[in-house]
């Protein structure tokens, strides 16, 4: 009885794994092609043109902050130094229980004001709007916390007066020309491009000086290195690959530009959504496809947003569980799009990929390991085939990771040091055991949290972006 069941499970696993790897391979090929083309274009598209053009639209930078007293001042300073002709910066203090607001008041000479706040998108009550006496472009919004980042962004969006909003995490750091670069596709095709996302890179290990990244180096911690590898793969292969097919479903919440009117039309970021970035982009696709409009959601790998990644298992696990929880919640909320021809390739390819190769992947993985164990226990396991299969999995995953290093080398080359390159390559071989298995457990926990209805905005522990607060940078 158990034999046929195992056979059925193993066949299912085999074809699942085959399909999964074929998709990864296709994405890798598309990403390499797109990256090389993009890199050539970047060489010839003068940023100065975007900077000086009267057609470059103004932007509202939205920065949600919740208990960010360690890094908020440095982040705001860094954002105010951005090279862009016209932007305003709206920081939302989302019910922080630490000194986030006080830090801002003190460092930017904020004054409480009667600034008109029209809640076009419903949010938790706003306690006050603060304007800076020294920096006209800065507006700080103090509101009660809803426990979600969406609410904080929506409150800021209600104040946004520019045609585009750019959402930036308070604990992240944009490169000085990041806005110019991310807006290049918008300036080139303002009628069709409704959203654009930049690349998020790991700042741990690099030197931070005066609110900007100095020498780019790799971190020393194992967990942080794993994340460098993951981010490279996710952005340079995943995002770039999906972007090549105009099926991009995620624009990172840490750095993304959206058309303000469209966001407001959609009711902003969905309240209570944990993966608010994914959710907004999916709803954009849904809305625009329903309206039968021609549009494009763009990924640009050049504008870099540096972010500090968790350095402990606990906080990384919490983060990953929250991401997976958000994915589950978003996909379930938009379940009508699955295999729905009304949504074209999004409904037939991108959303099913998210369901089957992202959301339920840890379940399949668990099922796979269980079937192997049961087969071994019953003596039904062919050791030779098992080892071959395991080896193939290992080598193929390594190939994909090395593919991301290849793209990095052929295009952006942020890690110029030979030692960094060697370490990047080494970690392509190291991440498959036991990190990947632990990662699956975190993702399973995310699914479990979703089923339990856990929706809180959990914070990850950070060291902070200030120079003195970065022991890892000092170690190099």
């Amino acid at each position: 009885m158990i034999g046929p069941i195992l056979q059925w499970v193993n066949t299912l696993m085999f074809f699942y794994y085959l399909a999964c790897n074929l998709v990864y391979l296709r994405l890798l090929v598309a990403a390499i092609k797109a990256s090389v083309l993009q890199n050539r274009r970047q060489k010839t598209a003068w940023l100065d043109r975007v900077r000086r053009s009267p057609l470059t639209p103004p932007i509202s930078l939205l920065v949600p902050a919740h208990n960010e007293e360690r890094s908020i001042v440095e982040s705001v300073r860094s954002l105010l130094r951005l090279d862009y002709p016209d932007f305003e910066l709206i920081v939302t203090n989302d019910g922080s229980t630490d000194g986030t607001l006080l830090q801002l008041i003190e460092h930017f000479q904020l004054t409480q004001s009667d600034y008109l706040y029209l809640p076009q998108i419903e949010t938790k009550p706003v306690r006050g709007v603060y304007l800076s006496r020294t920096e006209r472009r800065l507006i700080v919004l103090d509101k009660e916390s809803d426990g979600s980042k969406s609410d904080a962004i929506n409150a800021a969006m209600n104040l946004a007066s520019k045609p585009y909003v750019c959402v930036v995490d308070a604990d992240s750091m944009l490169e000085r020309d990041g806005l110019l670069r991310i807006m290049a596709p918008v300036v080139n095709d303002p009628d069709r491009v409704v959203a654009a996302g930049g690349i998020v890179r790991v700042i741990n290990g690099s030197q931070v000086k005066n609110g900007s990244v100095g020498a780019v180096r790799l971190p020393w911690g194992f967990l942080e290195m794993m994340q460098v590898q993951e981010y490279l793969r996710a952005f340079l292969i995943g995002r770039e690959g999906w972007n090549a097919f105009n099926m991009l479903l995620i624009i990172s919440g840490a750095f993304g530009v959206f058309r303000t009117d469209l966001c407001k039309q959609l009711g902003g970021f969905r309240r209570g959504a944990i993966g608010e970035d994914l959710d907004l982009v999916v709803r954009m696709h849904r809305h625009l496809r329903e309206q039968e409009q021609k549009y494009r959601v763009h990924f640009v790998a050049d504008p870099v947003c540096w972010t500090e990644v968790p350095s402990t298992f606990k906080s990384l696990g919490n983060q990953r569980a929250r991401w997976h929880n958000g994915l589950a919640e978003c996909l379930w909320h938009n379940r009508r799009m699955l295999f729905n021809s009304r949504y074209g390739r999004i409904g037939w390819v991108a959303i099913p990929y998210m369901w089957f190769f992202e959301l339920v992947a840890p379940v399949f993985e668990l099922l796979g390991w269980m079937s192997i164990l049961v087969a071994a226990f019953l003596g039904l396991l062919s050791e030779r085939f098992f080892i071959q299969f395991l080896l193939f999995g290992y080598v193929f995953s390594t190939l994909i990771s090395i593919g991301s290093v290849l793209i990095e080398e052929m295009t952006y080359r942020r890690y110029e040091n030979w030692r960094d390159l060697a370490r990047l390559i080494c970690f392509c071989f190291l991440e498959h055991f036991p990190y990947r298995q632990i990662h699956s457990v975190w993702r399973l926990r995310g699914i479990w949290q979703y089923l339990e209805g856990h929706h809180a905005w959990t914070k990850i522990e950070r060291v902070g972006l200030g120079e003195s607060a970065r022991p890892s940078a000092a170690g190099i």
Partner: protein
Amino acid sequence: MPSVSKLLGLIGPAGLIVQALLASLAAVVGLLIFILLRRGARHVYFWRRDRRVLETRADWNAIVAGTIPPKEWVLSRMRREIVEGILLDRLEVAPPKEAQELLECVRFSGLLDTRVHEARTWRGWRRHKALLALGRMRVPEAIPALTEGLDDAEEECRIAATRGLGRMGLPRAAVPILQRLSTGKLQVPSSVLLDALINNCRPTPGLVLTFLLKSADSAKPLLARVLGEIATPDLDEDLLLLASDESSEVRASAARALACAKPGLAVSILTGLVDDEEWFVRLRAVVALGELEDPRTIPVLLHGLCDRNRQVRIRSACGLSRLKNHLEDIICLALKTQDAYAVQELISELERSGGIFEMVTALGDSRRRAKAEAALLAALRGGCRRILLDLVLHHENWRTRGALARLLGHSGDSELLKIMELFDSPGLPVRKRRVLRWLERQLAPTQASLSQAVRVVA
């Protein structure tokens, strides 16, 4: 019973896995070798290149003057690329005299002819590269080759040719673009076209107008947008015509053009556009009115301040806040509209743009004090309370703080008392708390009578 894996092995997956494993392994090794070799090769290349760059920079004056014959560096590909790169970079920033010398060098060295030849004979990325270089040279001789690039089958090349022509800054270079655009034959992103046409047609905006009047409907908004950036006062009658065009995009661009050209008729034409049915035309009209910074625009901008669209209200407020000498009148007139949103939008804009802060600072200046006091009292009636109370406590100049406290104390605005509680935190220094107490005493006894007076004034 045979194992499931053995069954799979019999039907093929095992063989497939072995082949896939070997292929993946080969790919991994191949990629690693490629990455390492590439980095090594680049390292060597840039090391050699840097050395050559240093040599070239040392000989730079001789190369530009022609003392070192071009044949000595043109024949080496690396050297030629270095010289061309430095030349083109210098051309971007060089003063006219130096630019002339550099252009002479481009001509006599054969770099220009080489690039023209490449742009005409090559295809794909090599043509793209040649077109870009020609564009950066900014020499009229390159116009025919760049014009041919406009008809290339590849979009990248068409973009490069359009940008190249755009960098000339010559009306002559705009003509081929305009000809193709008006007949719908040029397919490149609109921003590239706009940039190119704006740059080339700035000296002669009439050229755009000529094509605009005879072009197809699809090209009209784009050409009108170009005109919006380069219009001159002598085009006033034509702009009047465009302001009544059927296309809303053209009307919006006409508003933009009026702000740019500032002809005598601007205010009256824009006044008409403020009542347009399309919100973005009204928006462009109020933005243009704001840019005129003319007191005659106050009634129209106040009308815009009460618009049903929030963007129009925001931009109207922005325009009004620029008229710094008339702020008192503007706030009083806004209060008379009895549109609470409009008043609050205006006050918000004054707060955001630093207008309120400037008025408060002006209290310390005896010449500007009277006007500032009147404007601040009007702003107070409009609901600008928190920021004023905050400035009473936190303005860096103690004289200004005192003047503002006296002004608020005598304003009789009872609403201030309610907000004062928010500022009276336990951490507030004693001196500041004393200021609040003083303000309370000033406002409390006369509350009834003065609020009546405020109502009368309002």
